[in-house]
Structure formats: structure tokens, C-alpha cells
């Protein structure tokens, strides 16, 4: 627990990180640093996106799997590290 907290703090302290969300494989947020409404919104949307991305990768090559997903938008960048059971989502403001 403490390690988790510490690591989260480390991630948080990186340049431009706006928020961190950890969701489970069903899209239910477990841990978050944002407010509830945003968390829920991110969780629902990103979960679907990751599912889609993963199925895409696996459809093309069943041996392949999604390891990292990065969405860059005008205002920020959303980084998603998927795993079997959980996803880690970090929202960062890139330094331009």
C-alpha cells in the first residue's frame, strides 16, 4: 500500500502530470487523483477505447497484444498502460 502510494507520488511529481486513474478490467475506477465526475467519465470512455484497441491489435495478429496506448490531443496527452486486470491512466500536459 505504501509502495503504491509512493510510486503514485513519483508519477504525480513528473512534469505536467494532471491526473492519474487506475481502473479495473471492467472500467470501475479504483484509485484516482481527479474528482469523481471526471474519473468516472475517463474510466468509462477509456475503458471502451482500450478494449477496442486491444481487439484491433489482436485481430491483426493474435500473438500480439497491446502494451501501451497514447492519445495525444491538442491540450494534453493521455497515456494508458493496460494489463490483464487493470489499467493505469495518466493525463499529462506536454511541455511544448
Amino acid at each position: 500500500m505504501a509502495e503504491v502510494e509512493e510510486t503514485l507520488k513519483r508519477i504525480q511529481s513528473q512534469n505536467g502530470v494532471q491526473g492519474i486513474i487506475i481502473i479495473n478490467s471492467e472500467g470501475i475506477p479504483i484509485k484516482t487523483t481527479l474528482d469523481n465526475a471526471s474519473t468516472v467519465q475517463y474510466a468509462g470512455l477509456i475503458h471502451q477505447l482500450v478494449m477496442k484497441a486491444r481487439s484491433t491489435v489482436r485481430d491483426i495478429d493474435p500473438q500480439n497484444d497491446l502494451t501501451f496506448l497514447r492519445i495525444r490531443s491538442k491540450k494534453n496527452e493521455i497515456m494508458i498502460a493496460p494489463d490483464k486486470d487493470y489499467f493505469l491512466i495518466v493525463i499529462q500536459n506536454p511541455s511544448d
Partner: protein
Amino acid sequence: MPPKRSKSATSSAGSKGKGKGKRIQSPVHETKPGHPDDIFPLVLTSATQKLFGCCSDVDVTGERPYKLLKKDDVIKDFKTRAAVSDFSPVKQIVLDYPDDDLLLVFDRDFIYGQSFYLVLTPEAKERILNVAGSPEPETPQVFEDEAIKTPEPEPWISLGSEQEIEEESVRETREKLLFTYKLSEVRRKFGPPAVFSDSKTAVTGCPSCPDSRFSIKLMLRDFGCRAVPRLHSSNTQTKGKLTSDVSTQYTPREFSNEEKEEILRSESFLNFFEKVTSSMLKALQQETIMNVFVDRWKAMGTTSEDEYLSPEVPKHLMLFKVFTEEKYAKGKKISTFNWHPTLHGVIAVALTEKRTEDSPMFESEDSFIVFYSFSDSSHAQLLLECPGDIFAFEFCPSDPNIIVGGCRNGQVVLWDVSAHSIHLKGTQPGEKAPFNTATFDVDDHKEKNTPVVRYCAASPIENSHKAPITDVQWLPPTFEVTNRGLPVENKYNISTQVVTCSPDCSIMFWDVRVSNVNRSARKQSADQKAPYSFLNTFKHLVDTWRPFYKVSLPMIGTTGKYAPLKFCLEPYICVANHTAGATEAENENAVNSEVIPDFSQLRVPLAETLTPLEDVNTKLFIGTESGEIIYSDWKKVIDNSGSLESVKPLHCFNTHYWLVNTVQRSPFFKDIILTIGNWNFAIWKEGVTGGPIIVSPNSEQWCTVGCWSLTRPAILFIGKEDGSIEVWNLLEKMIEPVRVYAQVSNAKITCIKPWTSSKQNFLAVADELGMLCMFEMPKTLCVPSRNEISNLEKYFVVEEDRLQDRLRRKEQRAKEPKRMDCDKPLKLPVDEEQEYKNYLKLEEQILKGLGLLSATPESHTFSHTHL
């Protein structure tokens, strides 16, 4: 009883069979009094009437006029009454009457002359009775009363119509002919078996031969058509998916806090987190290091999204206003004009006579400088009277009410319009003119006469230039020049000095203040009354004004002097790096500068009291009459004899071929100067001594005037002789203008000046017809493109480098040929000889190979001469 029957018969025939007697009676009645033969009109007395039972209107009436009488009765009547009997005239006829019954008809209307008439013959009786009495056969009486009225069929009388019918009718003229044909084979041919054979001709037929005698052209043909739609029935079957709106409302699933804790502690989570953290951190770091998604291509571009390749300059300028003055501007041309520095919408225009070469120089005619205002484009607001044509004038930078002008005859003239400044202010658009009775006559105001201001001071001819003054400029209020030409500080921070130049090869510096020299002379003049001057602002200058400093321009290399037409000073911005005392003075001056000084009170300070300013750039760019651009210093040097002498110009370049009409500094760059000659223009950088950094290509039309744009550093406007304006964009292309506005005016353009405010951008164009046109500048010409200044700077630097490079190479090339010339005749021919020999060998070989070799010496000699 004359029997006249014809007409009545026809008429009765015409209407025979119609029945009633009345109808028949009427046509008969009209015609004539006669009666037919077989009736006899009788008069029957009432006694007779009673006897026979035919009393008029009782037994016999109009409707039943017929009465059958027995013959025997009549004969008995004869016997009884013999001669008296009414029937006596017809006695014989009655006796002869074959029949038994006699018809007596009541002639009610006296058609036949009497009230009764007797029908004499039985045929007539029958006839009449039948006609009339047929509907009632049962009563013999009625039957006896023959109906006269039934029309008898009369024979038809021909009127000629049957002839027409005869003509038209078609009748068989002869009997129909009947031909009977009997065709048959000869008997012996019946019966034998048929013999078939091929026919000789391919087609056996009986074609109709076209009869050339006639041809019937089918004129009308019955034709019918019916449209039938092409029906095509088909069907499909789809898997119809019914769309339905479905909405759900949900709340997100969440874990409770305990569950969350639980998960966070779980093993799988920790594993996951370990794995993921490292990659996430790496990604985050990558982000911070570098932005991989930068669009380098876009970042390279210097244009913004709105203007991709600088926007299209619109094809036409929008005319905003045209200023012409009917009274004063007719027939004159505008030599120059100026925007009023402070008042918005006021322009001062100098009108000069259009003079040809032959007209005398110093004809004294009234010339004016006319003030226009936006509010009134056809009347002048103010007139400044000039002693002659003005070719150049300027508003004083520190006091816009003072105007200095240079005349055709070389005089420098001063005006003071402070008295009318209120009036001018009032003419600004949007302001009401204050009713200023103090300055005007009431009559004048009513008549709207433009006020005329006479010049306050004019330099005496002997002190002035000997040629028309072509350029006048105020020295900026930041420094002064002493009478030795040294720039010194300006204590009062007002412009008091004027520089003029003229093709008499001199540049003169004037001061508008009371000069220290000539005090005695001044005293004398003070007694004299200045003629016609309202104002005493410059009274001190009258008759004594003279330039305190003169510069002449000796030519480089030769004797003679340059004839300057236009010049350009560097505006000097005062840097506050003086001693404490000076700064105090400056502060004071800052306060004082609010107050418009009274020039008569000012005195030229003694040169020694003022601190000289070292960093004033005393160099001028001068454009001359013969197209040279001179860069010269106005400070004089002490030459051998100890007196001050004008220094020779530092640089002189003959870039323009004839008159230079504009020398202007760029409003954005301190050291960039535009000079325009008759056929081209050039851009100079101060400090670059090799020449102009940019020279435009020669144009076909004369360039008459030009100016920088005030808002866009790369835009130039050039006015041409045919009345068109060219817009040049230095950043886009240098070979041709970006846009040519042709026919902006019908005559030569004499002056262009732009003016900007936060809302509007105008370009005022003056021409030789005396018209001043004001155009609204389109946005594309006003708004500078992104980084225009920096791009322009870079461009100038590039051009400068190119110039330097060119010069360097020119020098190199100038040096080199000296070497080359001595080497050349030795080296090259040797090489060439060798080469030629090689060539000949090669030629031989090839020709041998081809078998064409003919050893003829002519071919060799030919190639010899070729060398």
C-alpha cells in the same frame, strides 16, 4: 268585279294548309279589294238573315262563317220575294247550281266588299269547306263553311334558283355502261397436269409504275400513338431492422471504499503496478524531453493561417473622398500636400500653376495653400496666401499652427494659423464649428468665405535661395544647430529651425527665433509696420531673416556642385544621459513644452552656452537634379585657410538617371532610405557605402513620387506619370509591383501620402489636375503580415551582403585581368596546338575506320581556318 288574283294567290299559296281563315285573310286584305270568280259578295238584309238562319254574329260568326243553304230554300225565296230577294243578282247562278247545298260565307271583315258572299261553284264550295271545315266533319254546317284559309298548294313559281341547282347538280348524262368480261382459258387447257418451273426473274411481281402525269401528295395522315408506361414490377426483401430510440440511465458502478482498499492490497494489483510503472515513467519522461508530434513543416512557415502567401491585394482602391476647390484649384496642379499632424481629417494642399517652359518665371499670381477638411470636400476651410508657388511646405512638429514653405522664387515663407486653429478644429468631422465671432466678421461667416491667412514672414529675396526651394524640413525638436553647424541640445524642445534645399546647390539652415545678430537692424524694422500681417508672431523676422548656416555641395572628383532636390535627415531621439543640471532643465522643459511658445520672445541662445550633442547624425541623404544620391555631412571642416568649408560628400551614386523626386526614410527602420528617381527606385541602408542595397528594375512610365506605407514595413507606393499607383511589396517580389492601380487619376500624380488612425487607413493622392483623392486602404495593405519587420530586416541584411559580395567580386575581377592578360598569350596557344593535333589524329582514325579517308590536304586547311 275585276278579278285580280295574282298576289293574293301567291300569298295564299305560300301559306296554304295553315288553317285558319284569319291568317289568310290578312295578307289578302292588305293587297286588293278584288275577289275571286267563284264567289259573289252579297248583302243580306236582317230579314233574309233571320229567314235563312244566318244572322251575323249570331248564327254565323267570325269563327264559323260558313253556312250551307239549301238550294230549294233559295229558290223559294226567289218566288216569295221576287225582286226584293237579296239573292236576286245571283238568281240565275243559283238556278243553275248543280248541287243542293250552297255555301254562304260570312265575310266579317268585308274582304270582298259585302258582309256575305255566296260561293258559286260546288268545287269552290268543296274547296273552301275542305280547307276550313275538315276538323269538324260531323256538323254539315261547319262542313259547308269551307275554310278559305287553308292554303291551297299553289304551283311553284320559279325564281331562278333551280337553274343554279341544275348547274351544280351532278346527273348521269348517260346510262351506266355495263361491260361484262369473261376470262377463261382455252378449253383445251383445262385439265392437264400443272407444270412448275423456275421463274427467270427473281422477283415476279407486278409493280405499279409510277404515273408521271400525276402524283398525289399525302397531306394528311391519320396517326395515332399511345404511350405505354414501362412497368416493371420487382420486389425485394430486407431484413428490416426497426430502429428504436433506446435510452438508458445509469449510474457508474463504483467500488466502495472497502472494496478499493481490498483491491489495492491484492497481489495481482501490485504485480500489475510494478510492471506498468516503469513504462509509464519512461513515457512521461519522453514527453518532457521532446515533443515528437511537432509539425516541422508548419513550424517553418512564417505565415499565419489566414494569409497563406500574402493575401491578394484588392484590385481596386476604394475611393473615399475627392477634394477639389472650384474657386482656387481650377487649372492648377497640386505640387505637394501634407496631413495635419494633429487634427484628424485636415489636409493642407499646395496649389501651383501649371507652367510650361515658356511662361515667365516670376509671374505674380495668387497662389494658395488650401486646407481641406473631411467634412467638406469641395470648399477650402482655410487659405494661406503665398508670395509665389509653393513646392514644399511643412507643419512645425512642435506647433502645428506654424507652417513653413518654400517658394518658387527661393523665398522661405512662414505662416501662423493659430487664430484659425479653432476654426480648423471645428471642421474636423464630427465636431460642430464653434461660432467664433471674435475672429470673423459676421458677414464673412454668413457668406462662408474661406478665411485667408497671409504669410507672416518671408525671407528677403537677397537672403534666399536663387532657385525654387524644393524641400523644406523642420529640424526635430530634440536638437539644434549652431551657426557653425554643430548640433547642440535644444533647451526648449521645440522645433525652431528649418532646413531648406534648392537646386542652386545649397542647403540652408534657418531659425525662426529672434537672432542675436543684427539687433540694430531689427530695431529698425520694428518701427516699420509689417504689411498686412495679422499676427506679429514672426514680425521679428521680417526683412531680416537670413539663414544662419549654409552648406554647399561640391562634387566629388570634379569641380562644380550638386543640385539637391530632396534630402532626408535622420530624426534624432534625445537620450537622457546628461548631467544633473541638464536633467533638471529637461524636466522644466517638459513642463514648458505644453505651453506654445511665443517665438518672438525666444532668442537664439548663444552657441557656447549649449552643450554639443555628439551623437547626432549630421549626415544627410540628398537626391540631386541629375539623379545622384549623395550622402553628405553638413558639418563643415576647417580647411587650410582656417575658414569653414563644406566637406565633400562622402558618397555619391548615380543610381537614378534624372530628377530624384523622393528621398524618404522608412518609418520602421531608422537606417533604410527610399529614393525614387524618374525610372526606378532604390533602397539604401545608412552605413552601407557601396551603393543602394536594392535597386528596382527600370519602369516604362516615369515614377513621379512615392512613399513608404505607414503600417506595413515592406510596402511602398509609387505614383506614376500616367496617373497610376504601383504597390510594391519588398518581401514578395522585386521585379514588379504587387498591384498596379491603373488610372487612379487622369493626370500625373504629384504626391502620395498615407495616413493611419486606429480605425481608418487612408492614402491621399494628389495629381496634376488639382484634385486630391483620398482612398481607403484595404486591410491587406494596412495590416502587416506576421514577422514582417523581422523578415524585412533579414531581407535587407541579405541584400546588403549581396551588395558587398558583388563589390568584392568586382574588385577582384578588377585586379585579376591584369594577371590574366600577360599569361594568356603564352599558355593557351600551346595547349590549343596540342589539342588540335590530337583531334586530327582522331579524325584520321575515325575516317579510316569508316573507309572514308581521302587524304586530301584541303580538309586540313579548312579546319585550319576554322581555328
